[in-house]
């Protein structure tokens, strides 16, 4: 059971690769999918290895990814689950 979970805001990603590189447990890789701007956003390849440390979120210059610890306080309606 993973200790953490990654959330990806696909449309903000510019495929800089920071998150992929600096995830300490190599959870991520750039996908072959495209977002509407033509970038390859990351996707989770090893979900079981995620610790929820949020280093991906700290590094992401585009605020497009973040990690949370599973069982962490869920956010209020504001900001989450929007389309």
């Amino acid at each position, binding site marked *: 059971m993973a200790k953490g*979970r990654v959330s990806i805001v696909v449309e903000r990603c*510019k495929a800089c690769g*920071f998150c992929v*590189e600096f995830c300490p447990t190599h959870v991520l890789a750039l996908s072959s999918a495209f977002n509407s701007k033509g970038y390859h956003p990351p996707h989770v390849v090893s979900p079981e290895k995620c610790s929820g440390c949020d280093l991906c979120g*700290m590094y*992401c210059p585009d605020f497009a990814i*973040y990690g949370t610890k599973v069982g*962490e306080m869920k956010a209020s309606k504001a900001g989450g*689950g929007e389309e």
Partner: protein
Amino acid sequence: MLKVVDDTVNPVEPFLRSDRMPHIWCPGCGIGTTVNSFARALIDSKIDLQSLALVSGIGCTGRVAGYVKLDSFHTTHGRAIPFATGLKLANPKLNVVVYSGDGDLSAIGGNHLIHAARRNIDLKVICVNNLIYAMTGGQTAPTTPGHATTSTNPYGTFEPAFNLPHLVEAAGAVFVARWTTFHVRQLARSISEAFQKKGFSFIEVISPCPTLYQRRNKMGDGLDTMKYYKEKSKVKHGAPTSEVGLTLNGEIAVGKFVDRDRPDYQSMMRAQYVESLGERYIEEAEMECVCG
């Protein structure tokens, strides 16, 4: 458009003007990364966001003001510090952060930088240094290392670059630190520390400009630069600032260089007036004279 399918929220999100995302910074630009560290520092320091004001100048880093959900002011080139000074003096309860770039703060804004440090105005200055004038297309800045290629030095620069920590220490800053965008946690910690200090704090963050500086100098993209920072940086807390200058391919000294105490501008002002005027000194103006 967030397209987040779960109900968690990015810890940074409450600090962002989400309605203005995605931002204009290039892929691999480090400015957004510094904003993450800034947001972390705000969370960790439990700063009251209502009394926090952010002032920036012109340039890529200057756009930070437009993306943070705070009372924020995008001012003129080089003049964020004097604007911030006016804000702080008119309302001393505000926590005022200046968030601007190396060109804005040390070239056109250089005079204001040294005077605010001299006066020890209680400001937290975050200087994102990408070693170039980025927004205008990659011209030589006072921080561009010698022999770098820029659009106005197409055959290589031949001027020495400013050593910003040395400059602001000499001018009087009480807190001087430098990190790179690789050092996300350390940067957040330094910003938090700066919030605990009264006086002129200056935090330099070396950041990639993959589109201009790195590209013209064949240093790869943003990720290559982050790895470069990891390789080249050396933590040297307390190092003499005269020794932390940057060169094209040399070591990047990072850490907390200066942490000293001296009275800030407003404390000195108050002390002087109390000594000269005693009870006649009235510190705060009646706010009713403005809003009625």
